[in-house]
């Protein structure tokens, strides 16, 4: 991050000269625009910004942003990002991954980058399908998903990316979706969080999993099916007529009706981004009986991995000088004098 004079950029400055090659109508276009809107908002500097991705539709993302970019190998973007950030902690690192890349082949690295708390933004585009390989069910596909590899419906149970992130020790967990006008706000919060910021972005795969998220992303249902989590505000939805309250008998959330706007009387819980238990409950709410929790669900920073590595290194090298000659001659040594040395015995 750059602490000097704020860099002034516009959305245009973040567009590369590369032709965008996603399918027409793909949710990735909207996410790309949201990111290009966010970067000027946070005064990001193109020369200090690096987008790192794995493999998949979403992972083509870096080519379309006018910054530094590294399109790596399947699932491993978090490991590359770790090397980049440790080599130069001043760089702003954004990770772009998908449900296959980040939850399946790269699940291990997603876990460890979160656990270590590398300061970066992790955008997981969740379209619940393998798009680039032509539509096989993914680790986030709902049970029963029909696909070329599951002709009568998949039998696997899906993983919940946000629950996985919390379980891995993430200190920032948020959710948004491709066409949401609030996505830049969510991304801004992720950027401002120091540490690994995990953002699950529901994304419409127009070809292989079309309109999968319509039941909460479409305008006509949005009010009734989305609960936006804002720190210090009550967890209300359906234009304030419903809210989420804690059921003390079952230690879980329940939906309650709010009469005349009196949410306090209805017992609606106030969102607290530092409440890890609440975050767990919000990300695990079964959709249908509950609304979809969106926005910043959890945000409680801890020291970042790279700052700890820098501090550890300072401690280890305290009082030491980098004298290579001395290093090579370390340990128990002995000297062979010129008079003892043998000469000319080569055969």
């Amino acid at each position, binding site marked *: 991050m750059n602490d000097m004079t704020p860099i002034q950029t516009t959305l245009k400055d973040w567009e590369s000269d590369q032709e965008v090659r996603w399918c027409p109508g793909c949710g990735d276009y909207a996410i790309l625009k949201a990111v290009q809107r966010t970067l000027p908002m946070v005064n990001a500097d193109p*020369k200090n910004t690096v987008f790192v991705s794995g493999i998949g539709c979403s992972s083509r993302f870096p080519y379309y942003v006018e910054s530094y970019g590294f399109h790596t*190998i399947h699932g*491993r973007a978090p*490991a*590359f990002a770790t*090397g*980049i950030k440790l*080599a*130069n902690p001043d760089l702003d690192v954004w990770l772009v991954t998908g449900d296959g890349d980040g939850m399946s082949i790269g699940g291990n690295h997603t876990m460890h980058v979160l656990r270590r708390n590398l300061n970066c933004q992790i955008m997981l585009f969740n379209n619940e399908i393998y798009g680039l390989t032509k539509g096989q069910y993914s680790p986030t596909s709902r049970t029963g998903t029909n696909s070329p590899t599951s002709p009568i419906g998949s039998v696997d149970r899906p993983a919940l990316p946000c629950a996985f992130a919390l379980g891995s020790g993430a200190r920032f967990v948020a959710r948004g979706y491709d066409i949401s006008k609030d996505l830049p706000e969510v991304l801004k919060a992720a950027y401002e969080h120091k540490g690994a910021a995990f953002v699950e972005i529901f994304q419409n795969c127009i070809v292989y999993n079309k309109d999968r998220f319509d039941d909460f992303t479409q305008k006509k249902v949005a009010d009734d099916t989305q609960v936006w989590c804002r720190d210090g505000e009550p967890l209300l939805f359906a234009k304030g007529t419903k809210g989420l309250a804690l059921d003390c008998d079952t230690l879980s959330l329940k939906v309650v009706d709010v009469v005349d706007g009196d949410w306090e009387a209805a017992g609606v819980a106030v969102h607290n981004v530092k409440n890890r238990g609440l975050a767990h409950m919000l990300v695990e709410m079964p959709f249908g009986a509950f609304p979809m929790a969106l926005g910043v669900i959890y945000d409680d920073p801890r020291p970042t991995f790279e700052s700890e590595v820098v501090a550890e290194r300072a401690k*280890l090298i305290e009082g030491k000088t980098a004298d290579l000659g001395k290093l090579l001659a370390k340990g128990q040594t002995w000297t062979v004098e010129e008079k003892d040395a043998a000469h000319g015995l080569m055969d």
Partner: protein
Amino acid sequence: MATITAEHETEASVQDTAPEAVVVRFAGDSGDGMQLTGGQFTLSTALAGNDLATFPDFPAEIRAPQGTLFGVSAFQINFGSSEITTAGDAPDVLVAMNPAALKTNVPALKPGGLVIIDTGEFSKRNLEKAKYESNPLEDDSLAKWDVLAFDISALTLEAVKPFGLGNKEALRCKNMWTLGLALWMFDRDRQPLIDWLNAKFAKKNPVLAEANIAALNAGHAYGETAEIAGPLRKLHVDPVASEAGLYRTITGAEAVSLGLVAGAQLANLPMFFGGYPITPASAILHNLVKMKEFGVTTFQAEDEIAAICAAIGASYAGQLGVTSSSGPGIALKGEAMGLAVMTELPLVIVNSQRGGPSTGLPTKTEQSDLYQAVYGRNGDASLPVIAACSPADAFECAIEACRIATQFMTPVMLLTDGYIGNASEPWKVPDPASYTPFPVSFLEENNNGEGHVLPFKRDERGVRPWIKPGTEGLMHRIGGIEKGIDTGNIDYSPAVHQAQTDARKAKVDGVAKAIPAQDVCLGETSGKLAVVGWGSTYGPIHQAVRRARKKGLDVSHIHVRHVWPLPENLGDLLKGFDKVLVPEMNTGQFKTVLRDQYLVDARPLTKTSGQPFTIAEIEAAIEDMLA
């Protein structure tokens, strides 16, 4: 040590007259501290001015069940007053701490050699565990050796009695007792060991330091005042004459670590080392953690893949990325190596080879990852491969790997093996100023005037510029998909892929112009037979060729460091010989590479027992070829 080459032979068994070289093997249970005993004996040997080579041989299990045959851990040292290049063939002296150690090691002992046995461990139960039907001390199965059997356990317990240790702890001092006896036998100074024990235990447990020192002294005194004149006698080995200068002992793992640090300094770069624990490569990570004042960042990754990916990430960000592993881990890194080839980023990959395939023989040595190094990636993904031939040589090779990686923007693989990694030898401490620096320059200005920067615009050697993120005005994207000429933008049209494949190959082939010509390290540059080796077979090949030449045979030794690309003159050199013999610890991999590259009738001599070649094995093959 290849500087002084006074001839020596060790055919005679232990004798009163000072021998030129003696091979001693310590063998015991893996919990008996044999590696420690051997290591300290090595140090005292080096301090006495002897040249030496060692061969640690231990089981994969950290604490294999006590007393069993597969739990035996051994350490062999060959030291003497002339140049030593191998850990020796058959030992002159064997120290066997229990029946299992005796059973597994005594067949290797020279006829007439000395075996020292701890009778305290020869209980009925231990004999059964070692699958002895009768007690070898009581039958005549050891008749061809000098046997010195006494109760080392009891003598040790007696020596450490004043310190009030428990029985188990007291018995742990046995290795020091044995070491004391060995030091006496070979006229070694005890003081460095006493200093070491004091330093090791001073803070944690001074009583243990005292007990161990007492055991060491007691073993030494036992030799001094032994009532049995028998076979036990003092051997003095004269110090070797070497080049004047400052010396220390060094293992291959230490040499690689120091060489990487030196290489990064010569490139004027901070170094990033990504590693994941694996035998026998972990030692390099352990060493580098302690060298952070040289701009070293170490990262213990979640797996082998993350280790190399993080290293590539660091290279992308402008540091020298390094990763290290052994065969199975290298296999996991394959895809990422391909990305480093494709994005043309510098990277050093160290492979401390071990026996394979799969988990194979984690603690034993082999050279069976040559194909993996040269060919083992998807696509046409050529990269330079360098092989170290000894612990000391690993220092030079690590520097060479850093030089080629940074000068040619390419991943480079450095091959060592378990034998080189663990073995130690005396090393003349080099002067860092004697190496020519190869400082890296990053692209700072747009190389395309007013247009978009061209991250893949190649120079006359086919090398692209290195651009650090953070550089004003040079934003660009790289990745694993085929890329357009100069621009790096995605482009996999037919002509472009053809051109880029050719360019990548030409660049790596061109490394041959930047490496030394192949020399002949012993013998003439043409003749009847060339014995061509690579890696840790250097010692036995060199001695075998020397012996054969003494007998008048027309044979030369060629040892190849640059395994890929091969030195430009190697083909012509080989064609100057009637026959070519390639000894290697695999089923004939380098032999195949040589045949492929030069259409020469290279003959294999292979060994995959997890043990290094003996001199005699190679000598016999030379005689066969010339018969």
